[in-house]
């Protein structure tokens, strides 16, 4: 009996000791310590982003803004969405960076150092609207594959660089040139060195526009690494994926560029409208060029409660791909009536335009403010989802915010 008692006690006390230690470990570990395996680098610190940005994906990094974070006329880095197809490059030396112009339709393959590019060609600064082709994808039904962007995959920063046209002409463009395609140094997610995460481009007509630039500065500073340091193509008004980051080679092609994400269903929509969910053959998919007309209410943040009798100032931006926004309207009765409001001219072509207006509410209750822009071709934003497409691109349905008056 006595021996059994001793065994029991000894066992118990050792368990107490064990549990006790475990508790000490536990409370100690709670003090802001995350085991190494769970530690994610903090994207907000790493990329200097506003803490209210939404992380959709951390491998690769894809982060979007919320509407109210885009209130600035010129989008600061802190509110700029991040869309990556591959891994962000790690070590970049701008002193040894070069850009090569090659391809079937270049007169002579030529390589420039970054220093040479900056000193040889005239600098230009433009404010350019870059919107992800899949912005708004989350609303499509049946759902489309990919990052489920809501409204925040758009920005309009100020970019400084040299015209792509000046560099292409310096190298020499053959008369059979039809397209340019970019190449960059980012690695494929699979780490397969033979694979490019993305290599897109556009027809010569877009490449030769004044506003299509090779940028080395953003909002007056070096471009942040995640946005393409040290050299980024910026072509406003088209899906932002044509604005290649970390660019080190541009090919002048004698055919439509066939790099990664130019083919299949990537950045393409059905050439002819299809029913939601319909299967579409690759041959029946066409490359997206200009983005459609769209707008966003950036103030107030959705969910505002105001007192009866008070007016409400609203404001936001509107853009229309290659075109300009000609008319801006809002509705507080789900589109039954629309009121036209003032829309400012763009700072330069392909920059978003600003609207602001004072709104009155007739009574207490729940309201939604809907915004609708119309482009210079008299095409407006739809109130419902636009045509379904397999990859969920080009959702330019009216943006809405919720308001309560009491």
């Amino acid at each position: 009996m006595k021996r059994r008692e001793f065994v029991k006690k000894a066992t118990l006390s050792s368990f107490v000791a064990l549990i006790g230690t475990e508790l000490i470990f536990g409370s100690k570990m709670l003090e802001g310590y995350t085991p190494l395996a769970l530690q994610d680098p903090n994207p907000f610190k790493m990329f200097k982003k506003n803490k209210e940005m939404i992380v959709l994906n951390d491998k690769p990094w894809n982060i979007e803004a919320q509407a109210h974070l885009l209130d600035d006329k010129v989008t600061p880095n802190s509110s700029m969405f991040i869309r990556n197809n591959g891994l962000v490059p790690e070590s970049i030396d701008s002193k040894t960076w070069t850009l090569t112009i090659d391809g079937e339709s270049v007169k002579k393959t030529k390589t420039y150092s970054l220093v040479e590019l900056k000193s040889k060609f005239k600098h230009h600064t433009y404010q350019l609207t870059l919107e992800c082709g899949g912005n708004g994808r989350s609303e499509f039904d049946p759902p489309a594959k990919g990052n489920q962007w809501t409204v925040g995959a758009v920005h309009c920063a100020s970019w400084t660089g040299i015209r792509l046209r000046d560099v292409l002409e310096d190298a020499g463009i053959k008369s059979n040139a039809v397209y340019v395609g970019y190449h960059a140094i980012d690695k494929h997610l699979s780490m397969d060195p033979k694979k490019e995460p993305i290599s897109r481009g556009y027809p010569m007509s877009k490449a030769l526009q004044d506003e299509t630039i090779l940028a080395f500065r953003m909002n007056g500073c070096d471009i942040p690494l995640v946005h393409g340091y040290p050299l980024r193509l910026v072509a406003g008004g088209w899906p932002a994926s044509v604005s290649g980051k970390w660019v080190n080679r541009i090919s002048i092609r004698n055919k439509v560029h066939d790099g990664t994400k130019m083919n299949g269903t990537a950045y393409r929509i059905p050439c002819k409208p299809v029913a939601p969910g319909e299967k579409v053959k690759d041959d029946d998919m066409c490359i997206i060029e200009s983005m459609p007309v769209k707008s966003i209410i950036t103030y107030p943040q959705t969910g505002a409660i105001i007192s009866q009798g008070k007016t409400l100032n609203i404001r936001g931006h509107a853009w229309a791909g290659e075109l300009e926004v000609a008319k801006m309207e809002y509705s507080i009765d789900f589109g039954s009536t629309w009121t036209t409001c003032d829309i400012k001219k763009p700072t330069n072509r392909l920059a978003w335009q600003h609207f602001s207006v004072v709104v009155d509410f007739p009574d207490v209750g729940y309201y939604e403010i809907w915004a609708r822009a119309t482009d210079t071709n008299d095409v407006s934003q739809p109130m419902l989802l636009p045509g379904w497409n397999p990859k969920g691109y080009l959702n330019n349905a009216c943006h809405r915010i919720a308001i309560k008056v009491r």
Partner: protein
Amino acid sequence: MLKEEVFRIQVKKVYQLLILVLIMFAITGGGLLYYLNNPGVFDSNSKTETLLAVSIEEDEDRIANGVHVRTGLVDAEGLMLVVNNCTNCHSSKLVTQNRMSADRWNATIEWMQETQNLWDLGGNQEIIVNYLVTNYPPQKKGRRMALINIDWYELED
């Protein structure tokens, strides 16, 4: 004869248990003494390589509140197959935000095999797809959803 043998075995077992308990006691007691003398040893800012290594082993596939902590995936049949086959190249967030039917998942897997170096999943494919459609089923959205999850706030001006 038999009884004696049984007794001997029992004594042996108790003896082994006692030894084990003593060893555990010695280790934890020693550890506690060390901890008392070095209270800062487990603080996150002090660099204790051994603790970090232990944590990795322990927490890699920890489940809390029905969720696989490292990936955020729901703990259900097929979880580890999804973790091991679907989160090597891309984040689990890309999996959970995409809600698709079995057909479209199978087509997506095929696309990943053709273009993204995904390996042959063999018999596991069915389990993986079943996990996805069961735990992350498609939601009906219609032509336009109502505004949801609104954080109401008093607007001061």
